[in-house]
């Protein structure tokens, strides 16, 4: 299953987004009321000017007491609206940030609830941005753009009303100057949006090119391809710069257009206003107040393109976040309703299990296998024969498309995850480590483990010698993704991690492929010793694992073609005998 492509409309996206973050709605009416009052502050100056000119300066000498009172009143109003502005901002930030933090958390959690299959349909970076930058875009809009829409519309509305009160003719003139902008602005916005999309794409390319010099530093040096890499970077950096310049050109030239319209409106108001004034329809104070009111039109329209952009980005961001949340967890935890299995040795039964990747041909056909408690099972077969699929079905990383997988007689789909993950643990080939110390990583599956328990586990696995060779022992930092350790060492840590988690069934998927044979045998023996009460399933290229197993499952083309003990299988011609022959010719001294 891929992540759902969310094609819902803008309105329903907002509605669903608000429903997912109820924090947004907390105290929203009060915040909006505060916003209205804060916006009213903008028309204080035009009103004050109109009053002072028409009433204060009407006579031969200025009416100073009136002017003093009017100015004092206006000043109080300015302070009050500023206080409203402060309260509104604080409330807005608190409610939106709370809502977005919980949205992030929900999105993150849901990504982990998706099956590996669904997770792998997206690049890691894209998945990460669904809980980071996509949410940031919503926040930019909610705290700036969305607010600007309200404030700007309020500002336009209030200014228009006041203008209409002063003179409907002049108000119409002003509108006539700005209406054409309302028609061209969306077009500008599309240009700007397209230009910025270009910038974002080029930024991605540029960062990718830069990261090659860092991530691929060894290969670049080993093959002397510094110049070629430098050329690629130059091209990417230059394309990025050009895209930025292109966007800037559009923004810079479209930006002053509103101001020009404002100037035309002012000039028009002066000419028409004077004619109206001579006719006695309008006072000088009102006419001059108009000149100040027109400036209230400019900033909303200047920011309109930006706000529209923000709104589109926010909707796109929301769609992507919702895309995650609306994708059902296809391999879902039955939760409270699920079965909790008691601890102890495990029986696994595959009943006619089949599997196909979505839209792909079946990779596993009709597999029926029983793994009895306390046995060591080896799974062998060529690359692509279905071994890893088998492992993923057994650990319920995926669900079968046909048949059932039973653990102690219970369908795997009915077992609670908390119980399942405690009892069945898989060690994948790529031993992913988290940035932290060796000890942090080993106790990842059992955080309560003490250093002494970790040391004991490493001793039991026969890794004391290795541990002693490390500069800081258990405190050795492993680096990002374990990069400070060698590939073999990472596998040792991953093994110790699973071993310490102490599951009832341990599944090793090529978990020791980069470890030296002596260490591998030591580990196998240690697992063996402690496995007496445990079921162990190993997938391996090295058939030494199969030799030591109680039961060998031989996979070919998605089917179990042979099973039995190593000795039994060798007694007959077949896939296993061939595999074994080719392995021994390589692994043994001649």
């Amino acid at each position, binding site marked *: 299953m891929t992540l759902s492509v969310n094609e819902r409309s803008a309105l329903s996206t907002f509605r669903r987004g608000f429903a997912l973050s109820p924090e947004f709605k907390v105290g929203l009416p009060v915040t909006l009321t505060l916003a209205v009052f804060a916006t009213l502050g903008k028309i204080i100056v035009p009103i004050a000017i109109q009053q002072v000119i028409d009433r204060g300066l009407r006579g031969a000498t200025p009416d100073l007491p009136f002017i003093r009172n009017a100015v004092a009143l206006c000043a109080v109003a300015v302070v009050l609206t500023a206080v409203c502005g402060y309260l509104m901002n604080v409330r807005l930030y608190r409610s939106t940030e709370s809502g977005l933090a919980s949205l992030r958390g929900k999105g993150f959690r849901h990504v*982990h609830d998706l099956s590996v299959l669904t997770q792998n349909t997206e690049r890691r970076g894209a998945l990460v941005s669904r809980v980071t930058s996509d949410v940031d875009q919503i926040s930019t809009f909610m705290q700036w753009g969305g607010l600007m829409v309200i404030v700007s519309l309020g500002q336009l509305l209030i200014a228009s009303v006041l203008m209409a009160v002063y003179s409907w003719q002049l108000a119409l003139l002003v509108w006539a100057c700005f209406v054409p902008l309302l028609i061209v602005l969306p077009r500008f916005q599309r240009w700007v949006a397209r230009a910025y999309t270009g910038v974002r794409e080029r930024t991605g390319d540029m960062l990718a090119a830069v990261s090659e010099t860092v991530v691929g530093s060894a290969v670049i040096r080993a093959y002397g391809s510094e110049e070629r890499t430098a050329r690629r970077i130059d091209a990417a*950096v230059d394309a990025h710069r050009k895209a930025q310049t292109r966007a800037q050109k559009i923004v810079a030239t479209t930006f002053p257009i509103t101001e020009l319209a404002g100037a035309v409106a002012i000039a028009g108001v002066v000419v028409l206003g004077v004619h109206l004034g001579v006719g006695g329809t309008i006072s*000088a104070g009102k006419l001059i107040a108009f000149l100040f009111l027109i400036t209230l039109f400019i900033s909303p329209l200047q920011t309109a393109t930006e706000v529209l952009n923000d709104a589109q980005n926010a909707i796109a961001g929301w769609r992507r976040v919702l895309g995650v949340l609306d994708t059902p967890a296809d391999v879902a935890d039955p939760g409270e309703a699920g079965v909790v299995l008691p601890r102890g040795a495990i029986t696994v039964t595959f009943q006619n299990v089949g599997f196909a990747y979505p839209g792909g041909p079946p990779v596993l056909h009709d597999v029926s296998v029983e793994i009895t408690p306390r046995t060591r099972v080896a799974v062998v077969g060529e690359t692509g024969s279905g071994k890893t699929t088998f492992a993923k079905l057994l650990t319920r990383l995926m669900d079968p498309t046909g048949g059932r997988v039973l653990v102690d007689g219970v369908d795997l789909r009915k077992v609670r995850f908390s119980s399942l993950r405690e009892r069945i643990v898989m060690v994948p080939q790529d031993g992913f480590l988290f940035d932290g110390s060796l000890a942090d990583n080993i106790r990842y599956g059992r955080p309560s483990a003490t250093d002494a328990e970790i040391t004991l586990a490493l001793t039991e696995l026969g890794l004391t010698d290795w541990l002693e060779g490390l500069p800081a022992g258990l405190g050795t930092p492993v680096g990002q993704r374990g990069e400070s350790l060698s590939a073999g060492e990472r596998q040792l840590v991953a093994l110790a991690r699973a071993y310490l988690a102490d599951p009832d069934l341990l599944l090793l998927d090529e978990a020791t492929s980069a470890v030296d044979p002596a260490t591998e045998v030591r580990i196998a023996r240690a697992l063996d010793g402690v496995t007496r009460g445990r079921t162990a399933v190993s997938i391996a290229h090295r058939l030494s694992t199969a030799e030591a197993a109680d039961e060998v499952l031989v996979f070919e083309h998605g089917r179990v073609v042979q099973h039995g003990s190593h000795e039994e299988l060798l007694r007959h011609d077949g896939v296993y005998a061939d595999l074994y022959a080719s392995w021994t010719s390589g692994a043994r001294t001649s």
Partner: protein
Amino acid sequence: MPSERDSTPTVMRQGFRVLGHAIRTEPRVFAGAVLASCVYGIMTVGSSWALGLATENAVLPAFRDGKASTGALLTAALLIVGVAVLKAAGVIGRRLLAGIMQYRMQAYSRRAVTRQYLRLPLAWHHRHPTGQLLSNASSDVEAAWAPLAPLPMAVGVVVMLVTAAVAILLVDPLLAVVGFLIFPAIAVLNFVYQRRLSPLMMRSQQLRAEVSEIAHESFDGALVVKTLGREDTEAARFQARADRLRDANIAVGRVRGLFDPLLEALPTLGVLAVLLFGSVRLQAGGVSPGELIQVSYLFTLLAFPVRALGWVLAELPRSVSGWTRVRAVLDATGSMEYGRERLPETGPARVEVRDLTYGYTPGAPVLSGIGFDVRPGRTVAIVGPTGSGKSTLTQLLVRLVDPDEGAVRIDGVDLRDLAAGRLSSAVSLVPQQTFLFDDTVRGNLTLGEDGVHAVPDEKIWAALRLAQAEGFVSALPKGIDTRVGERGATLSGGQRQRLALARALVRDPRLLILDDATSSVDAQVEGRILFGLREGSPESTVIVVAYRMATIALADEVVYLEHGRVADRGTHHELLGRCQGYRNLVTAYEREEAERTALDAGEEIVA
């Protein structure tokens, strides 16, 4: 924070030095931007003057006299529109040129930084975390040149303020006092605002990066999280950081919420003050009504641009810290020095390793006193337990790092004496960790050799065949011209390894070094690869790190490492006979089987 206040002048001085560097690099663009910005600044004051003039000469006389003068009105209208056009031209020029300057500086810095990444030795890379190097080239470069965007505007605003001061002084010195109180107050308030906001923004930016890092790591390790059932703790870890980000953003909001309305209220109060004092002055005959309007209008116009001064000054600390980090990369020394020696063009290489000692951290050598020879055309296997320093040794052999002591010589030439590019044309390393570029199969093999050096398709296919990659590559939708995606993610581990091997083979290396390069490949496939190498490339000397007996058996000699030292060397049989560690390692499977057989036999007897 007294310490911050103490350091402020220093930071500002450093900040101006960073800006100075940009201005010296792009003097003409900067001059153009400043010129345009001055036009904008003067015309902003000009527009209030035009309005005042219109009020004084056209509006008020008409109201007074009861009749409109067409000439005066037309002049006023043209003046208003004309000034606006000039101002718009100034704005366009300023924004465009400021952008060009900022983007050019970013591009210069990014190129310089990545050139350093390519030039500096791998040892330097080992000392710096990947994430840090990436942000040096992206966000640090961005921060360093961020003040360039508002800089020309700030210069224009200074011109604007001077013009405004003169204009108001010409109107009335007493009204000018109001202006001289208000405008510096706005500039100072905005500076305080930005100074308080800047650390909070940096903190929120930092937390945003951390939230993203957790998500990255957690999703990268999704399989481990799932298989160990740690979803809840991972979600809690992420939520804790997301909550800190929330709190940081709310703190930003509080500062914004306080200062934004203040900055808006201050000029409004200024206009009110102008009205009050202006009326007093009007009574005294100091100003005309038109001039009163002109000054009021000027206040509303200037309120916003004055903030630009604060933007630049506030960006300076971030700019300085960004530039300091960028400079640290640019000034990094210890670059790899090259000599002038060359190597023969053909024939297998001779390798001598002498007393090699190397450690990632001083005092903790990973390799000490390593020495061995490889004669031309021979194959040597390097064997040793996990963590014994084998991969590090391969890095020294291709001079990814230089030894702390001792030397590696090829055909008698110390690697450090070779001219740049000479070593990589003779020696190919296939590292343990496969790295593929986001490029086509062809691009990944040829690494961009084109033109005269273009690699013919037949040669690419031959290398793929030898690496046992021909089958799956020909099944790809576009064959060798198929893109293999982000770090080769579309291919399986074994397929990626085979492409990396083909990349080495297509170069016909005189020395081929394989660092456990077939670990993800099936035994059968590996067998075919090794057979091919032995039969198909007699021209190469081969050094191979391996555990598999099949690989070791191909070697003429074995170098056995233990704890970073050569514990023994000789033929496989010699070592089997006399070196216990080696015997334990390579015969581990056999011994295990033997023991088990004995055990089984024992059990049968008991039973």
